[in-house]
């Protein structure tokens, strides 16, 4: 099957109850690049990440990863595919009963037959890459939010995956942690020749490191282009989101009756 990206989303529709999240969504994620998936809250950015990771199945259409339709894979094949993929969850999702070292060692112990020395060295190198070699004996409860996310990043790249998915990596981080994470994502991507998919609504931070941006809205792709091209776009929806304007074609208010009709004791 001819494809134009390492990840291809083909005519994907996904619903939550009666609510349409995606309707005939099409997009492609290029190999070796950093792709930022952006859009207003509730547009299904994290859902798209979960569809790519095979945690959710589309109701219609195909999600192709390395040219394989995820929905057609059995559990063993899916697990094999997942071994080529790392995920950085929004909360970090560190195992709270394991130390920092053991968290990073976890996927290696499960999937690779390394000697004790090889495993130790590999974990230490991954922790060194995120600047937390000295914190290897700490427990997750002893880490700050930024540190926990860096440990989770070290764990996500421990297996040296080909694709890495980041779910809101900058959310709730202070400016220093944000800059460090930016540098790490960019650095890891070029050093390990990864394909990085980044879900974020931190426009400046994501645009600074992304090679391409996919802008989601109203259940479809509003735009897919380089950050510079999107900054210069004249499309009203793209302009409103990129420049953070409250008024525009993307509604700020959840659908409701006119305010005058809902206020009590007001003459109509």
């Amino acid at each position: 099957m001819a494809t134009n990206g390492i990840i291809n989303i083909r005519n994907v529709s996904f619903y939550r109850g009666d609510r349409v999240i995606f309707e005939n969504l099409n997009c492609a994620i290029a190999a070796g690049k950093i792709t930022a998936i952006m859009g207003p809250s509730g547009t299904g950015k994290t859902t798209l990440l979960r569809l790519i990771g095979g945690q959710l199945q589309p109701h219609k259409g195909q999600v192709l990863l390395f040219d394989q339709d995820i929905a057609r894979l059995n559990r063993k094949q899916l697990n094999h595919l997942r071994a080529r993929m790392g995920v950085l969850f929004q909360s970090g999702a560190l195992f709270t009963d394991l130390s920092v070292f053991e968290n990073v060692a976890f996927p290696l112990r499960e999937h690779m037959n390394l000697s004790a020395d090889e495993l130790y060295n590999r974990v230490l190198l991954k922790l060194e890459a995120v600047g937390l070699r000295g914190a290897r004996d700490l427990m997750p409860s002893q880490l700050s939010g930024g540190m926990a996310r860096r440990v989770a990043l070290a764990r996500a790249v421990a297996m040296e995956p080909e694709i890495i998915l980041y779910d809101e990596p900058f959310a709730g981080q202070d400016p220093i942690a944000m800059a460090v994470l930016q540098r790490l994502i960019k650095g890891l991507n070029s050093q390990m020749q990864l394909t990085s998919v980044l879900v974020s609504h931190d426009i400046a931070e994501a645009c600074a490191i992304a090679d391409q941006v996919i802008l989601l809205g109203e259940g479809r792709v509003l735009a897919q282009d380089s950050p510079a091209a999107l900054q210069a776009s004249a499309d009203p929806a793209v302009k409103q989101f990129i420049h953070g304007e409250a008024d525009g074609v993307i509604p700020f208010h959840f659908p409701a009756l006119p305010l005058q009709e809902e206020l009590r004791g007001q003459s109509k």
Partner: protein
Amino acid sequence: MINLIADLGAGLLTRLVQIGQALLMLLQAIFVQPKASSLPRLMQQLFVVGVQSLIIMLVSALFIGMVLGLQGYTLLSAYGSEQAVGQMVALTLVRELSPVVAALLFAGRAGSALTAEIGLMKATEQLASLEMFGIDPLHRIVAPRFWAGMISLPLLVAIFSLVGIYGGHLVAVDWLGVYSGSYWGNMQQAVDFNEDVLNGMIKALVFAFLISWIALYQGYSCVPTSQGISAATTRTVVYSSLAILGFDFILTALMFGGAV
């Protein structure tokens, strides 16, 4: 009226679907080839679920045994049969009170903790993270906790009976002066291993299955928010308690109902 019937039907269907889902979850979790690497996880859960429930069981068993000793002595001495107090304490404990009370305590102590732990793992994306590492959370998280419950509760029930009988001895013999030989002798004569001890253990196994199943399903399927986890934990205790009491009647009727 039609709406009421429709609502009842819809409610019943939802419950049936939930029971089906819970059964599927359990089957997927437990029908897996055991590996040597799973043993440390089982041991850890046996400690958390079993050993850490020991203190509350010991203290409760002692007091329940003491109350039985006191009540039994008061009642039986009116007929001059206080020598039978040992048999009364042992039969009450082995047949009924040990399995039921230990199971209720186990649901409150270990069941609620299991639900809250798995619910929090879900809320903090630890289960999703396992899945993304190609590890089935049902095998890794649910299975060892289920087997730990199945092994722990029968052992806790046996310990409960033992301590309860000593509690009864403490009051009836050491405090109220019943002859120690009668206390143990009558007990030995009256308690039958198959009829009483084994049936009590069968009850313990059934209760362990119910509590572990309910607690794990509630945690695994909860809405991953603080309110959702709190509601799931409450449901574990309520559903487990009702299931224990309901099944106790059914099992008692099946085991001992023939004599009626």
